[in-house]
């Protein structure tokens, strides 16, 4: 049945929107009209149900319009429209395949509208829409449904998390993935979950469980969806959060207030000012809110060992697996990240790598990166040794190309960073010889390996390669190689920095009070004085519990500070003591102002300290004890933690200073090495790009890439112009005008003529006056004067 054109006059009589508008304003008086329209809807629905397939353009009003009308005013007449939502649900569930597209979309839209008006609840809506999403053959309907489902989930989680709804939907999705592992329907679950994860609506382990099941399914698309989620879902989430916080434009309240003072005072203006103030306040509050603690998906997994093993066996070891190389690489990346992050033991994984470690293998750098990533300190070295041997044999030889060699060396280094025991002496010495390679990439990779082993296993190197510091330490017996499975004693990273800082502060305060800086020099006599002072300081600390609101702090009433006495007599002679003690607060400010200087300062002090002390070992022991003390006897306030973070970043900056400055202190160097290894977060993946590393230095650039680089450096300068012209153009584009000088230069010649002519006819007196005036003006500094 073709669509009939409706004349204007016909429309006037059958004006549903008009009726809708009137009902909205006064539902009681139009009840009869609505009732009759509802009858109309019902009879149209019956007509439709007789032949759902055929088009339903019956006369003036179609079923679609009636549905739209009833949905819009359904909340006004709850008794009359009791069965309406159910009817719609039945209609679309049973006939979604043969409804005409417009009507179908209208029904979906009406259901969502009813949900917005709270006529039906979210779970009813989602339970209707979700089965459709997986069954309908229409692409446009799927897109619509996906969008509607997502927006409904978002809106119902907008104010507070709707845990019940989330749980039901998660269960539905989980069942969808688990029930039929071979079908691609699970893809919808994956898509939905990923989207909700990205928007931080779902952040719990159940979500991760869905994805875990997805990555263990039998359908490639679903597998890839799940695997990609684990590899990139968290990064996506972070990026979105950053984007959201970035895209709010800054509001300058001062400027707005100023403008409101000057501009015409209208109600609109004052309202907009209030609005801006509210926004600023809200943002401020939002900023001060504690950061939502979101664990990454990899950390929320219940059984990482089981997951990694199953993934490996099902998709990689299994010869019947249908995944292609690219997909396998993704799975391998996930497995290796799991192994590296959770320190899992999947021994057969390493022998699996052996087959792929040849330069001819496509995307071998990804394999190398995965191998390095799956290495951790609990992997038996004898499992890794053949792998390293193979890499060395296949990649690192004189015959191999430079990029190949550098990639191999980089890979070996990355493996050895994680498990230094996997290297043997002869191989290492062999590899280190490449440091004199002509190729820059190879040379740098070899040097990287060398510097690594100077730190972690200097005795494997030849004597001449060890370097001064390592040799000295070896000689003194300070350096001990870590044995397999040995762990660091747990501590808080950078705690010794905080301790040093506190010490410094304490000294400064004592100086400010006029006491000798060194508590130990006072002797036992005024021990209680010290105690008292300690308490004072502590109270200060508790006072500064929070970083932001320092003023509204109350002191911690009945808390007793239990400090060990040993903490007081630690620091001894301090040669370059500050001569001019100022107020403590000022000093604090100064510290913040030039951290770098202070850092060097501290280092220098410590170095001298070491020289002076005969029993260095005892001192070190004491220091360790001290650090432990700090961790065990005090609660670190948020202010402390913030300071700690600051100190850590300073330390990592100082490690970038030239070697000569750093060599002053051995501890600083160890620290620097630690910082370098911690530079990259543990959660961050190792990529193939890092393995390829400096390989691009190995070969010369071709002309195109060189041109591209030049063009990039040049910026947007696309035509030949003088730099002055460019500058002027830039100023003009910023809305800035020309200078007076320029204006004078551009002035029309005819306009200047009169003045020039007059100049010639001046009398001497006049000329004198003018000249005097000129001198006067120049003294004053221009016509308007420059002294105001």
């Amino acid at each position, binding site marked *: 049945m073709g669509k009939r054109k409706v004349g204007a006059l016909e429309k006037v*009589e*059958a004006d549903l929107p008009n009726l809708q508008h009137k009902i909205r304003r006064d539902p009681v008086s139009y009840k009869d009209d609505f009732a009759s*329209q509802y009858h109309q809807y019902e009879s149209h629905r019956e007509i439709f149900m007789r032949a759902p397939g055929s088009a339903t353009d*019956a006369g*003036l009003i179609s079923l679609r319009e009636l549905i739209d009308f009833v949905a819009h005013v359904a909340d006004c007449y709850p008794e009359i429209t009791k069965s309406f939502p159910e009817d719609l649900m039945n209609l679309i569930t049973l006939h979604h395949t043969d409804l005409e597209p417009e009507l179908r979309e209208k029904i979906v839209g009406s259901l969502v509208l009813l949900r917005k008006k709270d006529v039906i609840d979210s779970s009813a809506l989602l339970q209707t829409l979700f089965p459709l999403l997986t069954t309908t053959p229409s692409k446009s309907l799927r897109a619509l449904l996906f969008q509607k489902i997502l927006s409904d989930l978002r809106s119902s989680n907008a104010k507070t998390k709707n845990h019940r709804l989330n749980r039901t939907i998660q269960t539905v999705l989980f069942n969808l993935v688990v029930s039929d592992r071979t079908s691609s329907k699970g893809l919808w679950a994956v898509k939905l979950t990923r989207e909700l994860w990205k928007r931080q609506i779902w952040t719990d382990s159940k979500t991760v469980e869905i994805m875990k099941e997805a990555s263990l399914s039998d359908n490639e698309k679903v597998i890839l969806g799940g695997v990609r989620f684990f590899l990139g879902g968290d990064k996506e989430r972070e990026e979105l959060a950053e984007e959201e916080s970035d895209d709010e434009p800054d509001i300058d309240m001062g400027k707005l207030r100023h403008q409101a003072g000057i501009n015409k005072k209208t109600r609109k203006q004052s309202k907009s000012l209030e609005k801006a103030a509210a926004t600023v306040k809200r943002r401020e509050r939002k900023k001060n809110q504690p950061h939502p603690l979101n664990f990454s998906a990899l950390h929320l997994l219940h059984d990482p060992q089981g997951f990694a093993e199953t993934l490996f066996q099902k998709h990689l070891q299994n010869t019947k697996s249908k995944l292609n190389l690219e997909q396998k690489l993704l799975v391998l990346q996930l497995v290796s990240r799991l192994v590296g992050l959770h320190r899992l033991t999947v021994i057969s994984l390493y022998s699996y790598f052996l087959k792929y470690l040849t330069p001819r293998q496509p995307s071998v750098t990804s394999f190398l990166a995965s191998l390095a990533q799956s290495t951790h300190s609990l992997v038996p070295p004898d499992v890794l040794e053949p792998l390293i041997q193979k890499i060395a044999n296949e990649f690192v030889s004189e015959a191999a190309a430079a990029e190949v060699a550098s990639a191999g060396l980089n890979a070996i280094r990355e493996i050895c960073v994680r498990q230094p025991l996997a290297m043997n002496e002869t191989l290492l010495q062999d590899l280190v010889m490449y440091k004199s390679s002509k190729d820059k990439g190879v040379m740098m990779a070899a040097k990287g390996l060398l510097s690594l082993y100077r730190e972690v296993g200097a005795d494997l190197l030849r004597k001449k390669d060890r370097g001064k510091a390592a040799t000295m330490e070896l000689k003194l017996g300070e350096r001990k190689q870590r044995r397999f499975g040995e762990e660091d004693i747990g501590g808080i990273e950078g705690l010794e920095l905080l301790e040093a800082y506190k010490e410094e502060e304490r000294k400064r305060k004592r100086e400010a009070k006029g006491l000798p800086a060194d508590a130990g020099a006072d002797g036992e006599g005024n021990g209680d004085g010290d105690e008292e002072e300690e308490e004072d300081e502590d109270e200060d600390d508790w006072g500064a519990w929070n970083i932001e609101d320092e003023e509204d702090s109350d002191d911690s009433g009945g808390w007793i500070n239990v400090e060990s006495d040993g903490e007081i007599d630690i620091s001894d002679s301090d040669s370059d003591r500050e001569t001019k003690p100022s107020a403590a607060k000022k000093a604090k400010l100064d510290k913040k102002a030039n951290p770098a200087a202070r850092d060097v300062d501290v280092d220098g002090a410590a170095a001298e300290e070491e020289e002076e002390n005969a029993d260095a070992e005892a001192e070190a022991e004491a220091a360790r004890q001290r650090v432990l003390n700090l961790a065990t006897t005090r609660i670190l306030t948020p202010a402390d933690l913030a300071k700690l973070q600051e100190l850590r970043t300073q330390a990592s900056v100082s490690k970038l200073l030239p070697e000569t400055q750093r060599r002053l202190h051995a501890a600083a160097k160890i620290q620097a090495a630690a910082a370098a290894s911690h530079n990259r977060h543990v959660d961050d993946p190792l990529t193939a790009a890092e393995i390829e590393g400096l390989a691009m230095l190995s070969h010369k650039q071709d002309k195109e890439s060189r041109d591209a680089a030049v063009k990039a450096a040049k910026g947007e300068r696309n035509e030949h112009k003088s730099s002055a012209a460019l500058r002027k153009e830039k100023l003009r584009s910023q809305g800035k005008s020309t200078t007076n000088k320029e204006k004078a230069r551009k002035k029309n010649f005819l306009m200047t003529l009169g003045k020039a002519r007059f100049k010639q006819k001046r009398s001497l007196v006049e000329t004198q006056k003018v000249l005097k005036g000129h001198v006067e003006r120049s003294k004053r500094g221009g016509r308007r004067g420059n002294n105001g």
Partner: protein
Amino acid sequence: MGSSAKKKKEKKQDFQKAKLKVGKTKPKASNFTDTSFSSKAIVVNQQSLAANAPTQAALFNHHLSLLTHRSDTQRRESLSFLTTALSTRPVHTPPPQPFGVILPKLFPLVLDGSGGVRQQLLKLVKCLSGDEVDDHVDEILLYIRAGMTHLAPDIRSSSLDLLEWLLDVSGLEVVSCAGGWVKTLQCFLALLGWRVETGTASKWTSTSTSLAGTAKPTFGKAGSDGKYLVKKLHALALFLRTGLLPPTEDGLIGKQDIITFPLWQTEQHLLPKRSACFAHLNLFGAPRDEESEMYEDREDRQGIFAEKFQPTIERGLDNARKEGGEVGRAAASVRKAVSEGMEGYSREF
């Protein structure tokens, strides 16, 4: 200055009359657009290659398909063609298409926007007989009900005409088909603006209900309301009479019994002559609720009527009778139909 002289000349040119010369073509206007185009072939969109005129049957089919044409004149003309074709066909000759095909195409026109089409439709259906329509009663009733609650008053009124015709032709079918009794009665109530009172909540609005039907402003175009109300009441009276009065017995039954004397109640044992004779069992459809149930007996109809509609209708009739005049008379006729129909009905518990 040279340029200004040039401009002057240009300006002048605008107002100068172009000189026409004999034997030369007229100069083109400045805003002339060339609309000519070249084509490799000439395509004739519709061409009839038939040498002889189309048969009556083909014409009939053609006009049947034109019932959904977008122009209302065309629709009306096609309808009138069909009317003549159906009415002038020889007795006992079937139409070119079976009624099962024709009728479903006619029904949607009940809701047609143009008055002329609906008039013509009424003319067409009037030349159909009862046994031709019987099988499609429930279908056309759907459209009629939709028409009765339509926003446009004209459509409402013409659907009442159709209902009257349908009651004339096959009244018993109308009141006993699925949903035919309760739903149509509901439509009547909505049409008359008589509200079914539910509980005590609407006590305050009862005054406004009493005025309903005449004085209450309703949405849509106000037609000739008084006359229209009379028409509604007449239709209602007819409907109630058909549904509530006992079916008129033809004297034939006795005769038949005499003819087939040794056999008793042969009718019941013969194969049924109408289609879907077990429709009341509803074997294949969705389960029916109270509204869409079939009420085949007079007693059933009386029961549901007494339970749901009688109080409302009587209250409405009281108000209508107070108006007097033609409306009052029509109301009295409805009241008569109700009282006659409910004769002998006793509420059973």
